[in-house]
């Protein structure tokens, strides 16, 4: 009898020890996300200091002269290129994404629904380098031979418009699945309430469902925005890689991420260039994170205003 009590108290000790150790480890894992976040900002900031001590921030952001070999670091062309690409992509992708999400959540039934949504899941998981490669043989010739000449622009097919078109394809499935999630989370009573006073399906979607799912769709679009803004591989393959202010949507150009990709390599041996490219990384982080935090804030506001 005494023996068994001893062994059971021994077992309890062991269990409590495991409990304490696991608690430490899990707590550490909980802090990891925050630590990683802080470490990224600090590391990028630290390595950007050499550039920032030589040039003023305003000067670097507003100068359009980018020539690392001559120690000229004007980020304006890449910033304009990034804004151009992001705006065009979102203009093309957002309406399609929201419409397709509405189709899946509200119109499609049974097998059609399963089929379309699994296609979209697959599309979301295809590596972006494959989109770039396919675009090189499908999109680039079409844009270069037909689309650009049609609007009176001569181009090789590589450029801002091509990147935007392909990026729209890359981010759409991502925005669709997040939007579908928020539409499907809505209670059927909302649909019944609206239809019950004689609204059509479209009126219900427009005035009730899109509003109620608004905060979710809004964050889907903003996350899509973040993806386009920081996209690297597709722009690097398709933008043409010339650091100048783009003159038309079909012009070649540079985005912030492609600036890093294209000038990475031999130029990295120059400390100031190295610092400049890391500073680009810092800019990307700051903008995407600012957007994220704003999005969270706006989302909460919308949720209050459009609650149901």
């Amino acid at each position, binding site marked *: 009898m005494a023996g068994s009590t001893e062994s059971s108290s021994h077992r309890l000790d062991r269990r409590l020890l495991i409990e304490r150790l696991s608690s430490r480890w899990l707590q550490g894992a909980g802090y990891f996300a925050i630590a990683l976040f802080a470490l990224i900002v600090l590391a990028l900031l630290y390595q950007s200091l050499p550039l920032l001590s030589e040039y003023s921030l305003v000067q670097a952001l507003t100068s359009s002269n980018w020539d690392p070999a001559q120690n000229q670091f004007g980020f304006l062309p890449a910033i304009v290129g990034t804004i151009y690409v992001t705006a065009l992509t979102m203009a093309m992708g957002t309406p399609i994404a929201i419409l397709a999400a509405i189709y899946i959540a509200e119109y499609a*039934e*049974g097998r059609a629904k399963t089929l379309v949504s699994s296609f979209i899941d697959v599309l979301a998981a295809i590596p972006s380098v494959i989109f770039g490669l396919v675009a090189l043989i499908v999109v680039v010739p079409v844009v270069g031979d037909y689309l650009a000449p049609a609007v009176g622009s001569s181009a090789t097919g590589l450029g801002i418009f091509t990147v935007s078109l392909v990026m729209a394809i890359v981010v759409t499935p991502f925005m669709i699945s997040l939007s579908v999630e928020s539409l499907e989370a809505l*209670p*059927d*009573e*909302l*649909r*019944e*309430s*609206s*239809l*019950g*006073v*004689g*609204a*059509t399906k479209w*009126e219900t979607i427009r*005035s*009730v469902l899109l*509003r*109620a799912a*608004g905060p979710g769709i809004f964050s889907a679009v903003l996350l899509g925005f973040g993806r386009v803004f920081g996209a690297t591989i597709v722009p690097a393959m398709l933008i043409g890689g010339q650091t100048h202010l783009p003159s038309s949507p079909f012009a070649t150009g540079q985005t912030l991420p492609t600036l890093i990709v294209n000038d990475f390599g031999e130029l990295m041996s120059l400390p100031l260039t190295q610092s400049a490219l890391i500073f680009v990384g810092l800019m990307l982080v700051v903008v995407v994170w600012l957007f994220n935090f704003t999005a969270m804030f706006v989302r909460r506001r919308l949720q*209050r*205003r*459009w*609650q*149901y």
Partner: protein
Amino acid sequence: MTDAALTTDNLAVTYTGNRNVEALKGVSIEFPANQLTAIIGPSGCGKSTLLKSLNRLHEIQSNVEISGDVLLGEQSVYDTDEPVPELRRRIGYVPQTPTALPVSIYENVAYGLKIHGDYDSRAELDEQVEHYLRKVNLWSEVEDRLDAPGAELSTGQIQRLCLARSLAVEPEVLLCDEVTSALDPVSAETVEETLESLKDEYTIIMVTHSMDQAKRLADEVVFLYLGDCIETNDTRSFFENPQHERTAEFVSGHTVVGDDDDDESEPTATATTVEAGR
């Protein structure tokens, strides 16, 4: 007996999911105009199904099959060229869960009016909104915060807001699905009072699982059991002199409990019998 506002003609509904479930097995019921008819019966007996099929709201779900017809006055609801939204406007619906649309209190009431363009000026719209909010006894509680989100009201207030929203398009028939079951007893009472005040003007069809509520409010009672309509009668005779054995059992089985707040427990017990019956 007044004229029937709504009549079902051998209405049958089958859910064709993984296995077929006959929710309604061909019921023919007359719902008299300007009366409040309560549909009662144990859980899962097809009450909500019947209610939703009256204005074709079940159509938002896939895999539902329906046969038979519903007549709104003389007009067929299923075999018609009239667009479904027009029909639903004439047969309004208030869901079980109090549901505010994601707009302001004002816009909640104005929603149907705006869709149908039933007003000439902003002033008229204001007037209409006030009129219907007064009708459901909500005006005095919300008049100073019409621009606040509808969802900020209490559940009882939201349910009255739903009533106002439905009434605003002047339906000929109003369908209410257990409108008090999600509410606390006090809010439930105010909603009941509102229904009481409306029933002379409108044809109301209400699903309830509370026998006492049916007794208090209804002019007519319809008893559904396992997808069949067992008995239809005016409230008084229904409870005091049930024509059918099942009705008698159901009515007496419940009246033992008596207390309004306990109405959850009894139908559940009956539902077990339903399961066994399958």
